[in-house]
């Protein structure tokens, strides 16, 4: 006759079968799914490495081409840079360079005076201001000029076209003009104009 402990053991064995069977199933599914997805990822990464190897070879060729193109033309680029920098220094000089501007105004006066009345009676410079945000500075200039009407228009043209590499005249803009026409004139048919001009001359750091 079986006793109680024997029965318990038999029952325990039955329970173990169920539990282990269940655990095996769960672990099999979990490990299987994990392994499957990770394997896919592994294969993707391996493919990616092969793709990257091809890309690296192509990019190295492109890099060689770009480097060659750059260094082949570098001398020309540097020469152009130097030219631009030199010309830029005339039209947008480093610092307010008011003495150079004064010389330019004298040269303009001399040029216009040859074809008619043009006289700069005075030039006053204000305090230069540099705007970091805009990247350039402004030098206020006030001038009083007596001129024929034709020369007045020519002078305006010069100011309006200043800052060109062609004429190397300093970049300027007119802030205000007050002009007065005089009756009669030095040359027949030509009025004399007296004008007070305020303009901004620009510079870089």
């Amino acid at each position, binding site marked *: 006759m079986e*006793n109680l*402990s*024997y029965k318990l*053991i038999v029952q325990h*064995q039955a329970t*173990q*079968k169920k539990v*282990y069977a269940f*655990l*095996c199933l769960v*672990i099999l599914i*979990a*490990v299987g799914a*994990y392994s499957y997805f*990770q*394997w896919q*990822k*592994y294969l993707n*990464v*391996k493919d*990616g*490495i092969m793709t*990257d190897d091809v*890309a*690296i070879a192509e*990019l190295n060729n492109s*890099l060689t081409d*770009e480097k060659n*193109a*750059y260094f082949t*033309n570098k001398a020309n*680029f*540097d020469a*152009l*840079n*130097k030219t*631009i920098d030199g010309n830029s220094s005339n*039209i947008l000089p480093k610092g307010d360079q008011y003495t150079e501007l004064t010389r330019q105004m004298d040269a303009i006066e001399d040029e216009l005076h040859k074809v008619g009345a043009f006289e700069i009676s005075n030039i006053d410079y204000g305090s230069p201001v540099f705007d970091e945000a*805009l990247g350039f500075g402004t030098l206020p200039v006030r001038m009083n000029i007596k001129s024929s009407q034709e020369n007045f*228009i020519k002078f*305006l*043209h010069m100011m*309006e*076209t200043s800052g*060109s*590499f*062609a*004429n190397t005249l300093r*970049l300027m*803009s*007119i*802030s*205000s*003009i*007050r*002009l*007065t*026409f005089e009756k009669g004139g030095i040359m027949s*048919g030509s009025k004399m104009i007296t004008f007070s001009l305020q303009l901004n001359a620009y510079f*870089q750091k």
Partner: protein
Amino acid sequence: MANTITGTLEGAPENPEENKQNRNPLDNPGTANKSDDSDFIKNLVSESGAKNQNILEAAPEVDQSLIEEVAPPASVLVVLLKAAFGLLVIGGIASFGFFALQLTDYLQVINQRLDIPNIAADLSAKNQEIVSIQTNINFYRYLQAKAYLDKFSYDADSYIQNYEIYNSLTSSKADRDKAKQAMADSRPLLKESFLAARGKLILPLSHSLVVNNVSDSSDPFAISVSPDQQFIDGTVGKLRSKADELANSTDAAAKLDYKNYLYAANLVGNNALRQIVAAIDFDKLSDEELYDAIRLVDLLAVNDFSIIQKIKEFRVKWSDIIHEIDLRTIIADENYTKDNYDSYGGIRYTSYSFDTDSRQISVVGETRKNDTTTFTTISNLIDSLNKSELFEGAEMRSFSKSGSDLEGYTSSLRISFYLKNLDQEVQNQAAAAASQNVTNEPDLSEDDSMMGGDLLGM
């Protein structure tokens, strides 16, 4: 077993007498009642004088303790299941370990100690190598683009000046013809440098990367920023670091290189400029369209030319304004020339006042007529000024007159008016072009305003 009468267990008796005595009486039922038998029987039941003896000994008792020690046999299935469980656990750990070593950095120490390759790290390293090579490509490419754009802007400077001379209201015919010819001569040079710059700018900045798992934030090898931005940042960083190396140099060539690197960095990621440059069909541009394109490219490129261009954009051409005032005056006074006033009267200005900041213009003068209609002349002048495309807000609220029928009548005039805000429109268009993504062909405006024409409307 003692006293085994039947001798079944201990062996048969060895002599006849004993045999006779031991003979089972049941073997001879006929003689069962015989006295021999009775003696035998007596002998069977009595022996050595002992009375009431059992044939068999007491039945053996079952020793329960033995049974208690006997366990049920081990279940083979349980053993198998345990083994399977163990194998699966080991397999799971092995699987995790393998993939952790290959695809993550959890076991980085083991990778390093045992020199086991990690392919995810290898992929990441190769991606970084691609980024590095592409960054170097971009570095040289954008230095070239910057140089070609500089050439374009430099050659375009004379084009712009000639265009403005050609379109100025106060230029002489000789100057206009000369300017027109210069514009035509400079076109081939402009085309060459423009196409060279575009060839570099429209090439892609980035390269496709095989990403391990961008969406998995726990992936240590995932790229944290968008791939395109990574290339842009890398290229800008390299250019700026090169510039920083030269920042404090006093050598003239080094200073030029410093600017080159900085301006090239400004071009990287400048999508507005790239799109404008890509959209322009150079051969189909008219003179005005080319003029607008040059201004827009200069504004967007963010370099010395853009600074110069910005200043020029907001310059007011006062010579043309004076000319426009004269034209408007002629409408009010058909005899208006500066030399006819003394003879025929009309309008004469004694002073002008122009102010760029407030955009205000004031004209002071007088009008003289032989009849009394000086106020009409002034009113006509005010209306004429207000009808101009350049002016607005012309007014004079107080009129006075003096004179006589003999000498004629004279009225002083003092009219203030304003420039229309065309500059703001130009500025807004430039800002809109810089911020919009251009997907269509540019809408090249044909408006030829005095301030230099309209920008490419996009």
